[in-house]
């Protein structure tokens, strides 16, 4: 049990939430990108919305062993990003025959990014980030207080 355990826990969450915000920024930036990847037919595909998947860090062997031995779970060691998943939702079709990427019928495939969803996600990430900063500050003040013992 290290004294900086709590700080590391909060730091892992800050990193994870920051990555979530970065992903939201990327989604919003690419909301109109029609040429993001090249598929197996050699054609351009629009940008696919990306999502961050979180996983608790204490799904480790150690934590299960402790739970089996003492009957008590470990205090946990934060959060980590398991993967950046892509949204399988179909692309939006917009009629725009003059667009260079329009198909024979005149429809253009646009990314499956919904700005509304992204803004909600961004707000959620911001709030979580703030909560973790508060937790970090609380830990910091406790550690500084501990240094005053016996002064």
């Amino acid at each position, binding site marked *: 049990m290290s004294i900086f355990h709590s700080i590391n826990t909060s730091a892992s969450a800050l990193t994870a939430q920051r990555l979530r915000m970065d992903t939201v920024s990327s989604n919003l930036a690419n909301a109109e990108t029609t040429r993001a990847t090249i598929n197996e037919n050699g054609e351009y595909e629009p940008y696919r919305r990306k999502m961050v998947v*979180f*996983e608790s860090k204490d799904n480790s062997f150690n934590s299960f062993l402790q739970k089996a031995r*003492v009957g008590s779970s470990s205090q*946990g060691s934060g959060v980590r990003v398991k993967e950046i998943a892509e949204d399988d939702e179909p692309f939006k079709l917009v009629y725009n025959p003059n667009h260079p990427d329009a198909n024979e019928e005149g429809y253009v495939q646009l990314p499956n990014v919904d700005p509304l969803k992204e803004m909600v996600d961004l707000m959620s990430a911001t709030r979580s980030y703030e*909560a973790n900063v508060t*937790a970090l500050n*609380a830990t910091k*003040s*406790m550690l500084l*207080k501990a240094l005053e013992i016996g002064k």
Partner: protein
Amino acid sequence: MSLFGNTINSLERSLDYASLKNQTISNNIANVDTPNYKSKSVVFQQVLDEKINNQFSAKRTHPKHIPFSSSAEQNTFQIVSNNSTTYNNNGNNVDIDKEMTELAKNQIYYQSLVDRLNGKFTSLQSVIKGGR
């Protein structure tokens, strides 16, 4: 007679408890968006068990008799997960308001413990100096 008595030991154990609790709360807040995460809390499991199991009080008539209560001093608190509820659609049950209040409470608790510990040392020092 020990110089420090029992006060410092109790304070020390309480500080351990508060520190572990802080780690647990930090972890809960860190996992507020993790699917299927269940919140954890620190409980005095063993103290609770002793209270439940030792409802009869018996007097030892001889000091060599085996004591009725085994008072293990270590690890009186345990971390348990609350698996019974679900707040969120993704199986997560971290109540952020509860965690933030617990965090604030725990912080004040910790600081008051440190204050008390320092007060204890100051009074000991005053005794050692003969009140001068």
